[in-house]
């Protein structure tokens, strides 16, 4: 269904964002294999990114709800692209 597609699409985007940002941060000089410290970094980075996603989601939805209530926004949320 459409509902599942939105959730699946979002999960896929999250995994792609984690891979891009954590590879960028943890594998600065790509060698002939992933080293132990690189794998540790990737694992922790994944957890941190998911935490960041939760923190940002909560902050964003709280803010949108607050803006809706105070009627500062009229339609469709703050302009984000």
């Amino acid at each position: 269904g459409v509902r599942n597609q939105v959730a699946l699409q979002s999960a896929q985007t999250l995994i792609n964002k984690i891979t891009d940002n954590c590879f960028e941060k943890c594998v600065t000089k790509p060698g002939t294999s992933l080293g132990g410290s690189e794998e540790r970094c990737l694992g922790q980075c994944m957890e941190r990114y998911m935490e960041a996603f939760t923190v940002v989601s909560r902050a964003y939805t709280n803010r949108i709800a607050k803006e809706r209530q105070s009627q500062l926004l009229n339609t469709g949320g703050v302009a984000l692209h």
Partner: protein
Amino acid sequence: MSAQTDEALEKELASFLEQETAKSQVQSSIHTLTDMCWKKCVTGSIGARFARSEEGCLVNCVDRFLDSSLFIIQKVEEARKQAGGQ
């Protein structure tokens, strides 16, 4: 099935799709904000948990970005009114 029912069904479907589209846009905004605020706030090496300052920075980053967005939209509106635009 009567035409009445068909219409009701169509309306419900349209409303459902609209809601899903809105949800999908909210999701997309959250992904964009997470990526941007991650780059701004998580600048040190990755640890087993966030530093206090990093988590605070993430929350503030979202709110200050939305403040900045509203501030800029407001300035644009003011400029448009001054210019005597529509």
